[in-house]
């Protein structure tokens, strides 16, 4: 707004710009953060076996009643799926010493590759025989193939041992990259530009565009982080302190 020649500051626009309810990912993520303490409390004192059993129940819940029947969590783009993911990662953490977990971490990349290839194979195969899958439904977050392949890649990454300050700093900007490239102001322009780039330069052009978006959004994000971090650090510190005081009473 400030960069526009017709700039005019509007309180209403400012408030409106802070709305986030149109973004399913952000809303679901926040809902996950809200229920995370409840999940943690429920898991405290439970055995690994019990956690495994709960995870199994949740998996049936999500796969049969969700993906298969579509009664709840029909495409995985919601907090129900995020809660399942949370339980999965907690279970991977508590079973880290087990042999199956080690095997999964070692072969995770293979699991990921197999899962994604099968995902693509069935989609293309269905189209080939004239029965196109619905894209949103097939590539939904609770598709079993996608669930397995993502667990594989995550497990493989958890087995790496990397210590890099640079990576840690860049990673702090990733939420910003997400917000900046999915803003309603940017999406129509981004899609139009991508369409042109793809027609002109095919997948190489898309790859370059992704890298450019990442670099630009990361840069903006890091600057914004730098400016506003002290404020939020103070606020969060005060809230945490207050919470600790209340809990110790």
């Amino acid at each position: 707004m400030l960069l526009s020649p017709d700039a005019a500051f509007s309180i209403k626009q400012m408030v409106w710009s802070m709305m986030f309810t149109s973004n399913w990912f952000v809303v679901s993520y926040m809902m996950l953060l809200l229920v995370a303490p409840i999940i943690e409390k429920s898991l405290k004192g439970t055995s690994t076996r019990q956690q495994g059993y709960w995870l199994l129940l949740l998996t049936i819940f999500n796969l049969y009643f969700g993906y298969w029947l579509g009664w709840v969590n029909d495409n995985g783009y919601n907090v129900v799926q995020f809660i399942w993911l949370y339980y999965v990662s907690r279970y991977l953490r508590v079973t880290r010493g087990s042999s199956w977990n080690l095997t999964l971490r070692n072969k995770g990349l293979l699991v990921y590759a197999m899962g994604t290839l099968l995902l693509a194979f069935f989609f293309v195969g269905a189209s080939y025989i004239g029965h196109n899958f619905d894209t949103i439904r097939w590539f939904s977050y609770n598709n079993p193939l996608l669930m397995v392949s993502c667990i594989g890649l995550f497990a493989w990454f958890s087995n790496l041992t990397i210590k890099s300050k640079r990576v840690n700093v860049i990673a702090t900007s990733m939420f910003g990259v997400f917000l900046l490239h999915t803003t309603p102001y940017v999406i129509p322009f981004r899609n139009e530009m991508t369409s042109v780039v793809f027609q002109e330069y095919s997948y190489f052009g898309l790859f370059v565009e992704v890298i450019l978006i990442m670099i630009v959004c990361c840069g903006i994000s890091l600057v914004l982080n730098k400016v506003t971090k002290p404020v939020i650090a103070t606020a969060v510190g005060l809230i945490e302190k207050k919470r600790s005081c209340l809990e110790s009473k």
Partner: protein
Amino acid sequence: MDQKIKKERDSQFELLRIVAMFFVVSGHLIIKGADNVGLLTPYSVEEDGLMGVIIYSCVVGGGKFICYDNGLVRCEKDFAGLCETFYRLFGFRFGKLLLADASVT
């Protein structure tokens, strides 16, 4: 042990976060920009080919990793995490407002 895990932010999960966001951006460009996975127009093997579907299959799960990461590492910092998310959200929304064209908004 939980305390130790919370304090030490291992770079492999940070790297996964970067890779995940690379996946998310790539997925958005392929499915909505290139439109060769059948979201906006019906998918056809002859017209759209295989490459788009294969790449999209690889990157579609990007957003999931953020939640895995949350469950594995940040499990007891939820309130601070929520505050941080709000802060980033509002910070970026405000930042975008400053950069946006008044006529568009």
